[in-house]
């Protein structure tokens, strides 16, 4: 399992990355992250919503109420232009960190 700090730092880019593939809703986002991380990233489900609301306040994502297949209303989120910009910045930062680790560990273990 990832540490709390790392999970916290990766939340926004994860949400933004998932939303670049199309609009989605809270439950689906959580399931997708669980699936992609093979259960290594575990969010307390309810806590995702304050983050989504904050990102909406930031102007990175927008939401709309729609109807699910089962007839229930559901809140869908989609990424906005500013969100794409924010993702681009965050992506560069994560890649930079990843490159450093790759180089470091390559030197150390190969």
């Amino acid at each position, binding site marked *: 399992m990832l540490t709390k700090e790392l999970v916290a730092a990766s939340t926004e880019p994860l949400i933004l990355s998932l939303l670049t593939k199309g609009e989605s809703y809270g439950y689906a986002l959580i399931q997708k992250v669980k699936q992609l991380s093979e259960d290594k990233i575990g*969010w307390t*489900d309810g806590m995702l919503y304050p983050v989504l*609301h904050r990102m909406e306040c930031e102007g990175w994502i927008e939401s709309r109420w729609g109807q699910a297949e089962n007839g229930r209303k559901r809140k869908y989120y989609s990424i906005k232009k500013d969100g794409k910009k924010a993702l681009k910045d965050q992506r560069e930062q994560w890649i930079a960190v990843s490159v450093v680790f790759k180089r470091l560990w390559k030197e150390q273990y190969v």
Partner: protein
Amino acid sequence: MFNLEAAILEWRRQMLSAGIKTPVPLDELENHLRDDVEQRIRSGFSEQQAFDAAVRQVGCANGLKAEFQKIRATAGRNQMIQTIVILTALFGTVFGGAMMLPVLGRWHQAGILIWWPLVVGAVLVVVAGWGALYGIRRHRVAQGKNLISIGAIAAGAFYVVPLIQSFFVQKADLAGWIFCAVLAVVSVSFYGTCLHFNRRLSSPPAAPGANSS
């Protein structure tokens, strides 16, 4: 016999009494809870087991309330601070400029009566400008962008108008004309920089209550 609808109603009541405001967050959370319960039932859980597990996974009411309150408080505070910062910056720039511009017409004259408004005006413009830059960097909110855009236009217009006017006034003071041009460029560049920073800066990350340790 377990009644799912009654249990959800009771969960909703507990959330409400803990301070999770309806309708948006609570409706959204309820939808999430129902999705999770359905998924767990499909995986072979009983209704009660599915409900209990889903409620645990959503998290406790007090924790959720604290997270939503943080967002509301932060957003409200940021908006207030940024509004104050921008208004102060605009006031400082305009008031400072207003002290400076009349002096420019008597640029060649000497004496404290001529120079003090120029100095005080310049200090006001610089302090207000840097205050705005600092405030915007520290308290970024999306809504501030429009205010900054208005600020950029207002500040630009404030200095550009006398500049244009100087074209039509005979015997316009050359030094004043140049000074206005420099102020216009600096002022618009400054607010443009603020706007640029405001767009580029990202907020510190917030955790969605990580389960992992």
